[in-house]
């Protein structure tokens, strides 16, 4: 996959405060890239830098093939941004809001109308297109703001906390939209506090607090910190000899009993687990379930990000 966003020691200072400190990132085309960090970590500042809204103090970046600082208008045309606040014109209709923005992005009248209709339908707001946005719920406004950010078919979509404050139904629509964007080959740069959402949606995740602490896939982040654990639930319960047999299997790093199961840690479970199943069955154990054990991303986040304090 091609790189669609690359930064090199990107830095932004506000007086003595270093909001973004020498960030090096490489984001690939068509991936959902999670950007996770605590409040005040500089996530929004990073987004503003990458959308050519503010200028870096030092460092450089290439966004959608354009150089930051040299091709800023082209960058703004090639990306879309969902800001923390929906920022809609509340006295105006949903339709007028979208057509106005389509015009600002240089779309001709026919294309602007077609895109406004497409995104209003996609977000389930078509029937209410003529109503003023002030009458919309928080979730509907957020959907409108997402529609506005994607209206001009950006190559990279920067989403700042897209599901914050949304009910489960609206949040699901937004998540499905993100997945659909990935399906179209668009890149999504997702700033979020919602670790469960990041875990479900993101191909890779960067933990960030003023600087990038770690970048990897969610599974590899877990594996690196906790190894790859598998739970073997035995009927009626595991015997001491079952645990001994498991520990003796090649590739097993550790094993212990927990609530009627044997928890096994192994660096390469795809190779080790079939051996474990065979060993247990040959030893007379009855296996009810074999389940991959995933620590919550929250645990990983807390260990990595809070560990930086």
């Amino acid at each position, binding site marked *: 996959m*091609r790189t669609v966003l690359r930064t090199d020691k990107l830095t932004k200072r*506000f007086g003595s405060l270093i909001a973004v400190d020498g960030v090096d990132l490489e984001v690939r*085309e*068509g991936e959902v890239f999670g950007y996770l960090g605590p409040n005040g970590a500089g996530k929004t500042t990073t987004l*503003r830098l990458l*959308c050519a*809204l*503010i*200028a870096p103090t030092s460092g450089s970046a290439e966004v*959608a093939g354009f150089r930051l600082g040299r091709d800023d*208008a*082209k960058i*703004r*045309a*090639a990306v*879309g*941004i969902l*800001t923390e*606040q*929906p*920022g*809609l*014109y*509340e*006295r*105006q209709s949903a339709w*007028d809001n979208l057509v*106005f*923005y389509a*015009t*600002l*992005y*240089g*779309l001709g009248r026919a*294309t602007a109308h077609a895109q406004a209709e497409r995104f209003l339908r996609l977000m389930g707001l078509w029937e209410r297109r003529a109503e*003023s946005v002030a009458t919309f719920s928080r979730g509907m406004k957020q959907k409108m*703001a997402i529609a*506005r*950010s994607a209206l*001009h*078919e*950006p*190559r990279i979509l920067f989403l700042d906390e897209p599901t914050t404050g949304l009910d489960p139904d609206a949040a699901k629509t937004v998540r499905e939209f993100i997945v659909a964007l990935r*399906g*179209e*080959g*668009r*890149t999504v740069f997702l700033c979020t506090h919602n670790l469960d959402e990041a875990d479900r949606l993101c191909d890779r995740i960067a933990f960030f607090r003023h600087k990038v602490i770690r970048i990897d896939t969610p599974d590899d982040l877990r594996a690196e910190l906790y190894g790859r654990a598998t739970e073997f639930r035995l009927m009626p319960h595991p015997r001491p000899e079952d645990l001994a047999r498991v520990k003796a299997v090649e590739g097993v790093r550790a094993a212990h009993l927990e609530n009627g199961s044997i928890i096994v840690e192994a660096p390469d479970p795809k190779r080790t687990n079939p051996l474990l199943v065979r060993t247990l069955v040959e030893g007379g154990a009855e296996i009810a379930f074999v389940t991959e054990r995933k620590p919550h991303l929250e645990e990983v986040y807390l260990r990595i990000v809070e560990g930086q304090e």
Partner: protein
Amino acid sequence: MSAVAIARQPERFDLVRAVCVREWKEALGNKLLVGMTLLPPVVILAAGIVAVGAAAVNPPSDRDVQALYAAAPAVQGLDPKEAIQGFIATYFLILFMLIPTVVPLTMAIYSVIGEKSARTLEPLLAAPVGVGELLFAKSLASTVPSVVVTWVAYAIYLFSVRALGSQAAVNAVTAPRWILAIVVMVPLLTLLSVNLGILISTRVNDVRVAQQIGGLVVVPVVGLGIAQVTGRVVLDNASFITFSLLLIAADLAVFLFARLAFQRENILVRWR
């Protein structure tokens, strides 16, 4: 699959038209703004028509005529009733010059402070538009209605003076320097007021505070009116040209200051 972006920088005309139409729709949806915008011209126009009409009906007293001759020696020799009507008609034309200072100020202030408080500026600035073009479009969105309102008010006033007043009053209202004032100075005064409004709005967040500060723009116009009424200034052709040149210089200076204040990063990081 490789995604394709369909956006580009908008044509300048499309941008200006889109911003103007949006701002006008927004303004029309705000009853308070519409009321505050239309009240001054309606009051000035109504007062002017009533005053000219009253002067046509009621003969002036000797004291009024003597006071008029003292204040405006140029009208000596005219029939007193004609002279009084001509003077009143001219006096209200000076008040007409207040319309372009008051009307656009409110719109311009709402145009920036409204966007600040609704947090609509960030998505707007994320679009591939130049901030100078955006500022120009916003200026125009406030300038055009104000100029149109002033011109319409002048046309109604002119029609009313022709219907109610004397030939001296009609001559006063259609004097070339006043035509010049309405055609040239009104847009210049409007631009000054709009850009001052925008400049002030970049620094404050409260519409009322901005209006109070912006209200100072009427002081020179009111001062000019008083100076003319008291005979300290004679508004001849030369003085109109001088004032027009001064206004052009002031317009350019204020627009440049507004342009300096209206920077993407300033707006996003410093404006609160």
